């Protein structure tokens, strides 16, 4: 018998919680997904730190400087597009509240198309730079520029893929708990990518062009 530092349990106190409800799947997945986003945020934090370290004329190694490679106006157009895409996604969420499948699918399709347009502009930007000889293997500065922007781009690709899957699932299954949870989490993901893009736009494009 151990020494009791604690009180004893009285006879009237309940010992069991029969039919204890399982944790609500939506809040469970939402919390899990927020935590996942936190780890994603750290990936970007590390990349921005790397950018800050390598964003120095010295790291251009005699090649193009950052002001030679960034086009803030084009990037601003990308910014507008990505936020319109987020807006379209938000409209899909309005459709979700109304329980209207067609509305949701329409919003998702618009978000996908705008996301694809964003990526198209980014790829064109990359193609031009590479044609000019400003390739990632030219210097440390260009390495981090390409990798930071492309990491965001890859996130966008997966976001679009996810939306395509959700379009099919909404059409096939309607608003089951799993589908709704995924739509809500995808919203977090998509908005997060837009916010990251704002940081990229400010730190890389604006800061690079006008300092």
């Amino acid at each position, binding site marked *: 018998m151990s020494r009791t530092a604690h009180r004893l349990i009285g006879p009237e106190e309940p010992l069991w919680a029969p039919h204890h409800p399982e944790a609500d799947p939506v809040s469970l997945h939402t919390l899990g997904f927020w935590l996942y986003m936190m780890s994603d945020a750290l990936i970007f934090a590390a990349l921005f730190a790397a950018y800050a370290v390598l964003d120095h004329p010295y790291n251009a190694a005699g090649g193009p400087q950052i002001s030679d490679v960034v086009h803030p106006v084009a990037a601003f157009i990308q910014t507008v597009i990505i936020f319109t895409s987020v807006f379209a996604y938000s409209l899909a969420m309005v459709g979700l509240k109304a329980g209207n499948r067609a509305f949701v699918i329409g919003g998702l399709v618009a978000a996908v198309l705008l996301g694809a347009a964003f990526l198209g502009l980014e790829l064109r930007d990359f193609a031009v730079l590479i044609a000019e000889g400003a390739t990632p293997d030219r210097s440390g500065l260009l390495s981090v520029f390409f990798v930071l922007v492309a990491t965001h781009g890859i996130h966008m690709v997966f976001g679009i893929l996810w939306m395509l*899957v959700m379009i099919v699932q909404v059409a096939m299954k309607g608003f089951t708990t799993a589908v709704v949870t995924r739509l809500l989490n995808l919203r977090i993901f998509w908005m997060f990518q837009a916010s990251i893009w704002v940081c990229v736009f400010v730190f890389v494009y604006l800061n690079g062009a006008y300092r």
Partner: protein
Amino acid sequence: MLVHLQGAWNPWLGRLTLSQIPYHSPIVLGAFAFALLAAAPIVGLMTYYQKWGYLIREWITTLDHKKIGVMYIIIGLVMLLRGFIDGIMIRTQQLLADGPRSAAHLQAVHGYLPPFHFDQIYSSHGTIMIIFAVTVVLTGFQNIIVPLQIGARDMAFPYLNAVSLWLTAAGAALVMISLFIGDFSHAGWVGIVPLTELPYSPGVGVDYWDWALQLSSLGTTLGALNLITTIIMMRAPGMRWFRMPFFTWATLSTQTIGLTAFPVLGVALALLSCDRYLGTHFYTAGLGGNLMLYTDLFWIWGHPEVYFIILPAWGIMSEVIPTFSEKALFGYTVMVAATLSIAGLSWAVWLHHFFTMGAGPGVNLVFSVSTMLVGIPTGVKVFNWSLTLYRGRLRFETPMLWAIGALFLLLVGGLTGMMLAIPAINYTVHNSVFVVAHFHTMFLVSVFGIFAGLMYWFPKVFGFRLDERSGRRFFTFFSLGTVFVFAAMYTLGLMGMTRRLDYLYNPHWQALLIIQEFGIFLYCVSVFYFCKMIYVSIRDRAKEAHGQDVWRTSRTLEWMTLTPVPFYNFAVIPVVHGRDAWAMRRDSGLTATSPGDYEDINLPNNTIVPAMLGALAFGFGFGMVWRIWWLAGLSLLGIIGLVILRSFADDRGFTLTAATVRRMERNHEDTGIVTDHISPPVAELALFQ
């Protein structure tokens, strides 16, 4: 944009050629023979008793957090043995290759290992021990124990949990296969740049190290978010924050570190991969690369990682010491605060790993002070454990022996850490074996904690106790080995012996090297007793079988469950009335495991998908290492496709009816242990029916 490599490459096999299999090295051949010898009887017996189906149905496809935890621990212990063999080889080389007149064996000029091979061995030793042995075993414990301690039926995301396990397994498999196909990194577990860059490491070794770490770190991050969500969301009614068992708090702090630190490692490694595959210049010595970028990113992960490893061990000590002192943990609230502040501080000290790299006195001062600050909560913990022991009714059963041993090691490791935190001292001993001895003493705290946990919780998970007699011998020889190896190593460090030497230039070190080798011999003896302990315990399992509460003085909720724990954990979720919930119940005479009327329990079906994802991740890693693009590409597509496919399956899970639960629980009352072994069906089998 792909880097053009020198040497053979073809589209089917990438860089892989027959000559990459090191059959000319007698040591690798020996290892291969050993692996075969170890595997053959297992495979043979499995086939003979037709256990493959059982293995797949009950283990490979399982989503049960306890089985997943057990598999983590098995993987970790196997890797611990592998790392230990590496350690023996390192020590033996240094003993043999001391002084210009030292003898040469095999293909070496001194000792028996050529430098390149020696470098691979210490690199794999460090990588394996830190990432694939200690981390993995501790993750296993957290998997098994946390849901039980908080009164939950499973983790928040059982499927994701299995994915984490199989990603870790894929990483471990990559490390293991590097032994027989190609070679492993020679650049240390920290991956010194620019040595890891392509011009200096053109082979596949660094890539093996890189992808193995990358896969397992992904697994760890996913595991972290799973455990955190579990702790926040799945606690039984009445289990308020400050009623949580201490091990659960330790897990929460640990996994917070895991969630936030491992992505940084991922980035550090990914940028290295960019350098090696795409020719970028993140860490190269020229063209605008920055070596310190790697060093900083690595240690921003690396220091939190060392706390990722030690906090769970401290959690185990905080469970074992109260149980065998027969009183509550002293200063619970302070302990919680100390653990959380250590987790927080662990983020602010990374620069102490490179005081000597020219950051300047101002920066060094800041990091010196922040490092010493860690000593405060750590000291608080030591005092709290000591005060838990103080006037306790101490029982020195094996788990307690390990926990007390860990306490002493912590003292030594912590004090030498404090010495290293002073830049003036650090300049003289940095990169000497004094540092190596410091962190080994610290990691051994974790290893002692692991064995404490193994002895402590084994009966809960398997239903019988580990043999006490051979367990004590195991402890004795292991501790003696530790003293001999590391007392000598501290001394050698102060005498100026630097780390990672394949040849020692000073014959005066011979005596201390022999002492170390003797310590290694004692470790070997301890391994023998470990095996004996397992053997004897399994042989006498009927005699050593135990019910619910083996130690009779344990305090936390996991001891309330039936033994071995049925896969649903709790037939009915208990209500928690205070801290040390089980001790409260026991002292109130309320030891029933369930109220007597039961309910249907719904749990997820087993599924093969996580194991397949693991296999594909292995294929991806292997393809990347050898630059077999089709393999890597197909594996990646396979992973994405499988994840999407699985998202279409609506798995309603498996319902265990109240009647079955009743039968299982009643059976237990008759026999004392759980005899039914029902487990959920494999979801994919339904596709074929």
